């Protein structure tokens, strides 16, 4: 019996300093292997005197269970430690930068154009297009701006020939569409336009979005509704919008639209020239002359048209103070958007 107990003591002493799975395997072989000490004892059980056998056997089994359990625990422990050690050697510096594909940027003008298009498309407007080099007829005449009319001074025009111009606005597309299609019409026309002018607030080329809605019963109130809806989507609900009388040869009544200054909340600042308002859009009811020129009956149809400058809206949206930045194409500018 004592011999059994010292076996256990010896086992404990041996297993205690073990730190590797290989060492553990050796101990396992020594004690519980096929030729191990415990196995030998079990085989020799028959040589124990019968009267001592039950107790001896019981003790031996207890020691065997104890040793196997201890071996098991130790093995789990060591396996865990070895795994930890391996992970430790595989450790990386997770603060190193990732390898990434840098996306390019969409030009801010086109980002804002997309936003404008999305808003109008959601209201059911279709998108139309027309030539940038345009006949004088479509750019002026058909829009009720005859030759020798002072309204021609409102737009400095680039000429290609006597009767061909770089379109000064996207409005000629109105007429082109009306010639092709019958009402109801709900369209917007985004595009490049040109004016013979260059300074801090003017570039010889810029972008406009033209809009046109024609049906049998469209009123100035509808115009107000659509424009207000647009600016509330674009600048946020609650943005004050006001309409004041103005003049465009192809609409009547005509209006300029101001929004409450988004920089000073209408209190008056440098950007709104202390008026509290920012001019953002021109619009009006389609002039009967324009309907007649396009072959529509002004008694049967009414509608409105509007036009806005995309640069202007983009400048307001991102607080950009020099329009020329859009066309310098400096990456340090473009990559901000």
């Amino acid at each position, binding site marked *: 019996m004592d011999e059994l107990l010292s076996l256990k003591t010896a086992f404990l002493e041996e297993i205690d300093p073990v730190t590797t799975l290989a060492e553990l395997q050796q101990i396992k072989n020594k004690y519980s292997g096929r030729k191990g000490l415990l196995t030998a004892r079990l085989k020799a059980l028959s040589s124990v005197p019968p009267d001592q056998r039950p107790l001896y056997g019981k003790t031996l089994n207890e020691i065997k269970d104890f040793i196997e359990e201890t071996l098991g625990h130790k093995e789990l422990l060591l396996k865990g430690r070895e795994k930890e050690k391996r992970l430790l050697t595989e450790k990386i510096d997770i603060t*190193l*930068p990732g390898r990434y594909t*840098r*996306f*390019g*940027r*969409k*030009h801010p*003008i*086109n980002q804002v154009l*997309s936003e404008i*298009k999305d808003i109008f*498309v959601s209201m*059911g*407007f*279709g*998108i139309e297009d027309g030539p*940038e*080099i345009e006949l004088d007829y479509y750019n002026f005449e058909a829009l009720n701006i005859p030759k*020798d*009319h*002072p*309204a021609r001074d409102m737009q400095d025009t*680039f*000429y*290609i020939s006597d009767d061909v111009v*770089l379109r000064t606005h996207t409005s000629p597309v109105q007429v082109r569409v009306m010639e092709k299609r019958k009402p*109801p019409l*709900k369209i917007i026309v985004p595009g*490049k336009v040109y004016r*013979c002018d260059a300074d801090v607030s003017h*570039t*010889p*080329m810029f972008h406009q979005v033209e809009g046109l*809605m024609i049906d049998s*019963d*469209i*009123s*100035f*109130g*509808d115009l107000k509704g*659509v424009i207000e*809806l647009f600016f509330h989507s674009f600048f946020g609900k609650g943005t004050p919008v006001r309409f*004041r*009388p*103005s*003049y465009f040869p192809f609409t*009547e*009544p*005509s209006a*300029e639209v101001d929004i409450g200054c988004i920089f000073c909340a209408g209190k008056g600042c440098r950007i709104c020239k202390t008026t509290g308002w920012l001019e953002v859009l021109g619009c009006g*009811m389609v002039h*009967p002359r324009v309907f007649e020129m396009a072959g529509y009956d002004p008694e049967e149809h*009414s509608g409105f048209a509007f036009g806005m400058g995309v640069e202007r809206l983009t400048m307001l949206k991102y607080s950009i103070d020099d329009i020329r930045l859009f*066309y*310098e*194409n*400096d*990456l340090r500018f*473009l990559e901000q958007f």
Partner: protein
Amino acid sequence: MRVPIEWLKDFVDVSASPEEVADRLTMAGLEIEGMEPFDNDVVLEVNVTPNRPDCLSILGIAREVAAAFGLPLKMPETEISGNPPVSDIRVEILNPELCNRYTGRTITGVSVGDSPEWIKKRLEKCGIRALNNNVVDITNYVLLELGHPLHAFDADRLQGGMIQVRKAGPDRTITTLDGLERELPEDALLIWDERNPVAVAGVMGGEDSSVTHETADIFLESAYFEPASVRRTSKELGLRSESSYRFERGTDIEFLVNALNRATLLMRETGGGTIHEIVDVYPERYVPAKVSVRYSRVNTLLGTALKKEEMLRILGRIGLRTEDREELFDVYPPAYRRDIHQAIDVIEEVARLHNFGNIPVRIPRTALSDGILNRRDISVNTIRDAMRKAGLTEVINYSFMNPADLDLLGLPEDDVRRRRVSVRNPLKQEDSLMRTTLIPSLINNFVYNLSRGMRDIRLFELARVFIDTGAHLPTEEMRLSGIFFRQDIPSIWKDAVPAFFMAKGALKSLFEETRVTELSYIPAEEVFLHGGKSADIMTGDKRLGFVGELGPGIVETLNLKLQKPEIVVFELNADMLMSLIPARMTYTQIPRYPSIERDIAVIMDDGIPSARVMADIRGYRYDFIAKVELFDHYKGKNIPEGKKSLAFRITYRCNDRTLTDSEVETVHQHLVEHVLLKTGGELRT
């Protein structure tokens, strides 16, 4: 138009603050663009739209202020009493269609000198310099005050004591007040004495007959000239004046005697002299317009519910005489409101004076429409996004091109990109052509960014080019172009790819994203590209575009101070690209049976294009080749000079059963032999 508040008060007793006046005018359609303190006064800067020439005067603005505040208008004294002597100047109008009325009067014995302070001050406030000449100052003064341009002649210089109004005819010149001798267009309307032109009607007087300190007798003109004619003449002469500005917009033919009298009285007040009887030749009588408007039309067009009386009351506020006729009403606009000649003009006045803010907001009740992005717009968005995701940043350039750019690119004379459209009046010579290619703009963008220290420059632009085809309007086509440059930037994760393949890879992403397939690359013949590093991108036998490295010649011209920079550009016909985008895609079943992969590496002549080898493999007649990929391209150690090694991975698969190893092995061996035969190469081991 500059309007001093103090002067305004001569015509209307407005007690509101200048800010309040400014606000009311702005909301009535006369936008106040600025307010400038001036001594103890405030000057309003009014933006008068071209349809409202009646507002190009203090009186005109006063009329609007009176209407806005509901105040009466006070008119200045213009009655000339007594029995003045008859003027000895005769007036004859030979072109009554261009001059509907001509009035004038002689004032004898006037002393010409400094104007009184109050006149000088008011002129100064309005931005006009007093001239040490009360006669000229007063014509300016009355022009500002009443809006009617006047002209004063030295009566003793008018030969034959007569005024004739007629066209210039051929070869006529005049020296205008500004001292310049001008050749006159044949159609220009002139004022003549018995022999010579003495003024360009409505534009500027002649120097010879001008009023100077030596002048004793003057002849003062107040006339109505046809707007379009004045405008044409003024434009052709390149001569704008305060007078022509008003005449070309339209003046008040009924009021011009008042202006003449007002000036006459002021001249006598400041320079003495004897007033003579007026001469008034009025061949084309003004017939007041009558405009009929349906009440209901006003409300349907505006979306209002105004009552009849309200409409008429509103119009009465600006002095429009109206007459009620049941369903309709008639409007008789005064001569200074020639902009009102059809119903819509009246409706506009109602809306304007009712105030746009009072028109209720409504959401249109209109039919649903096909208001969707069309296919083209969707394609444009897809292209932009694909380029962006491929790492290119979008630029937008002016549509202009420098004539020198065509030579920079060295384009041959018969190249389509030489068929350019020129702008007749460019802002500068470098911007005088419309672009026929976007490449020069992108090179500029590259140089601009490089010179500012950027070292990773990848840009694209999607824009129109303009090709002159001889038709009335040029052809406009969309181009998608880009430029790639990336200097070896030290970077933590190495990724060295030649610029050409970066660009080609970006295009690959684009084609994949747009589902455009069946493209091939063949050597390009663009003169400005590196002959060995450029390709035309073909779809069938049509050229979609090109991609390639800028040739050494052009790079040298750019003077970049870089060692052999690899700058790659591309330009695609975006319209053609969009036409290749399939309208719909269909699903292909996911393979049900496993595939088997085999590799083949062949050493062959360096000159054989990989695409040819690829085509040879693809063309091998065996149904179960599912995919072929080139995965290695190698030259150098262990490969003989003039040779290269290409390695392909071939995926075999059958759609209705599992292929066996031995079956694939046999086929693969045959394929290897086929490739060796085609390329004349040998297996790399």
